[in-house]
């Protein structure tokens, strides 16, 4: 079902050979309710993988299980395994905090910290983890804002409050904030759903640029967006991974009937 080459799980042996994120028999329960059922997938590095599916299919939960954010729900329970470049992120001696430094996240609703300036927002992850070197902070700020395609627009007002930016700019600021800690994987939960078409376009262009250096997993309910910007697509339905493969194949020649029904708009 996953025609993914190099799906080995040797820890850190050969970066090109090890998948960025592998899940094996992953099931997640909130209380007694199974939100994800027996999901196994290999997500490739330096590519954009889109997660699609109708509401309630578990795609957001799957995304949040990669950086252990689903654990914020006190009734959450997990079975199975997730590995990040070969490392088991749920093993007993791994703190969620450590996982979250390796995996960045951008949310549906942009949420720059309101009491901080633009520059402070970008570096907050670094500073609160102990980085004090002003040179590093300054260079990382510029670097992240450039990668987020925001530098030119804000370089003259880095100390302005972050909330003075427009919605689309705020979202790119959140992307810069996530990139500043140099994560290995970037998770995006419907990052453009609250934005107008122009801002959405900018985000999509940004994603295509970023994939040269980052592994990106993006949840989207917008199938055209998935078709436009991703390399691989995973279709979830009612908590199960129905099909996973190159985007072009999923949208033009899917193997599973349910996938075909969804992408052609027969339901969802």
């Amino acid at each position, binding site marked *: 079902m996953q025609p993914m080459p190099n799906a080995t799980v040797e820890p850190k042996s050969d970066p090109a050979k090890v998948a960025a994120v592998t899940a094996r028999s992953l099931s997640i329960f909130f209380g007694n309710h199974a939100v994800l059922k027996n999901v196994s997938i290999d997500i490739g590095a330096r590519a954009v993988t889109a997660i699609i599916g109708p509401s309630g299919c578990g795609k957001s939960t799957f995304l949040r299980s990669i950086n252990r954010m689903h654990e914020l729900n006190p009734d959450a329970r997990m079975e199975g395994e997730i590995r990040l470049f070969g490392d088991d992120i749920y093993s007993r001696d791994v*703190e969620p*905090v*450590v996982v979250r430094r390796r995996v960045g996240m951008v949310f549906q609703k942009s949420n720059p910290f309101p009491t901080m300036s633009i520059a402070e927002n970008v570096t907050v992850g670094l500073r*609160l*983890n*102990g*980085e004090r070197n002003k040179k590093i902070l300054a260079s990382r700020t510029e670097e992240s804002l450039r990668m987020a395609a925001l530098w030119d627009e804000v370089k003259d007002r880095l100390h302005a409050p972050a909330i003075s930016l427009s919605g689309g700019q705020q979202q790119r600021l959140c992307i810069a904030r996530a990139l500043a800690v140099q994560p290995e994987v970037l998770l995006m939960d419907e990052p453009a759903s609250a934005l107008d078409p122009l801002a959405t376009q900018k985000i999509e262009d940004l994603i295509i640029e970023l994939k040269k250096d980052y592994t990106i997993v993006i949840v989207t309910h917008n199938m055209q967006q998935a078709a436009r910007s991703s390399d691989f697509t995973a279709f979830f339905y009612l908590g199960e991974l129905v099909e996973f493969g190159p985007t072009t194949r999923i949208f033009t020649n899917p193997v599973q009937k349910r996938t075909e029904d969804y992408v052609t708009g027969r339901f969802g």
Partner: protein
Amino acid sequence: MGSSATSHMGDRVFKGLTLAMALSVFVLIILIGFELAHGSSTAIRQFGWRFLISSDWDPVNEKFGALPFIFGTLVSSAIGLLIAVPLSIATAVYLTELAPLWLRQPLTMFIELLAAVPSVILGLWGIFVMVPWLSGHLFPLLQKYLGFLPLFQGAIYGPSIFAGGIIVAIMILPIITSVSREILRSVPGLQREAAYALGATRWEVTRIAVLSYAKKGLFGAVILGLGRALGETMAVTMVIGNSPQIVKSLFAPGYTLASVVANEFSEATTDTYLSALFEIGLVLLGVTVLVNALAQLLLKTFAGPGVKPQN
């Protein structure tokens, strides 16, 4: 860079610290109960149950009975509630349902300012403005027209149980009004819309959709007011006359549980005297804790998180 070990440690220490601070409320309530019980132990041993039913308050001969104060507290609180509850709920209804929009904020602000007036200042006004007016105008009027009732007979001095009741009413008006307001505001709009759709007038909507739905919460607001009335100290002390007697006339001076402690605690000369006052405090504590617990339960089970904690 902060390692995961130190951040884990930081999390545990911080959680432990905040937990300890939060648990302090349990320490506080146990502390009050314990200290008052401990302080009253001498009196309890000496007087037993008779303390609550004896009306003999005689510090000189070391005889102590709390009945006059229980009576005074109950009567002044009852008068206070009788006056305050209808006024407060009517005001809350006006503020949430019937008043023109531009008037609501300023009126609410006034009422919240009244809530901020300390008891002693109201008492000051009570001694020098309210009581003279009462003994000069209202009391004689009541005696003239309602003097056939034993309640309104007897000599008029000014400081009296009635004055105490009125001042309790003034003190509890803001809290009953503002809690009632929160309760009424939390009634879902759908209820009102359903009534409007039936062609009801504004008052009818209030009566049918809002008040009956909010009954339980409003009752909770009233009980909260009662709790406050029972413990009202300074303003009452300044206008009630401070005489430990049980008389039928509302114009006679009275004495409440809180007032006797306020007046006599620092003058208590003997251990028994002090202990008797502690026991009075214990009675007051027990009653207010029970009443407040009841009020909180009513408010919490009605309105949920929408109602602010009132103090």
